[in-house]
């Protein structure tokens, strides 16, 4: 069943999990045969920005050697056939332009969302 995953809560536990849990579970379910796509809204539009770098965290002598790499996670989802969308209005509100975003990510205006939602049999808002 064609499913849309909507992510709006960004960077919620990414440092501890070393990824975003919704992007992660999307990859895991995709590997299990799921037909799902991703819509990034609110602060999560930033997940689609090129060149993010969360490395360098050190608490005492304990370094995080595998920081989250959301850009790579989204790229893997795209490579597996998932479509990744951002809400353009939310991106623009954060000063993001098309050139700032990963290649392959598609933009949608807020006004287009109702019709867009109609393309899916199931919508999960995380």
């Amino acid at each position, binding site marked *: *069943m064609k*499913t849309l995953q909507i992510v709006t*809560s960004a960077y*919620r*536990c990414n440092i501890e999990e070393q990824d975003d*849990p*919704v992007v992660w*579970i999307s990859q*895991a*379910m995709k*590997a*299990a*045969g*799921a037909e799902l796509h991703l819509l990034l809204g609110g602060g999560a539009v930033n997940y689609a920005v090129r060149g993010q770098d969360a490395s360098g965290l050190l608490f005492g002598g304990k370094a995080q050697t595998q920081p989250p790499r959301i850009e790579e996670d989204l790229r893997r989802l795209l490579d597996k056939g998932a479509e990744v969308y951002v809400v353009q209005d939310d991106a623009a509100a954060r000063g993001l332009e098309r050139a700032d975003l990963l290649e392959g990510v598609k933009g949608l205006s807020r006004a287009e969302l109702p019709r867009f939602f109609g393309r899916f049999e*199931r919508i*999960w*808002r*995380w």
Partner: protein
Amino acid sequence: MAKKHLTLVMMDAPFENARTVSGLRLIDAALRRGHDVTVFAYEGAVALTFAKQAPHANAVHGRDAAQEDHPLPKDWIAALMATAAQNGGQLEWINCGLCVDERGVGEAIPGAKRGSPADLWKAAEASDNTLVIGTR
């Protein structure tokens, strides 16, 4: 009413958010009507069935542990499983195994089992509807 199969994803840790209680209310309502429910507990929600949850006294309330009768999510979920059985339905509770490991909450109440995102997808495909109660 025809029997339905509902899947819920829960994500909040216990004692953190009213969304958890709202989710359990929905599950209770469905089970009382004899429907089958599958819950996929993700992230902090895997601690909802942790067997070592313990009640405590509450000095602010002026009550000892027995008087306080502190509700524990594991007991509510066990009660929901019993409600399911009484009404001819089933409550299948699946904890994300990796989430369990990273939190050290492997000791779950009887009836709660370990699973993976593939189990969520299979349950959703077999269900009449699925509700994700994400955390914020």
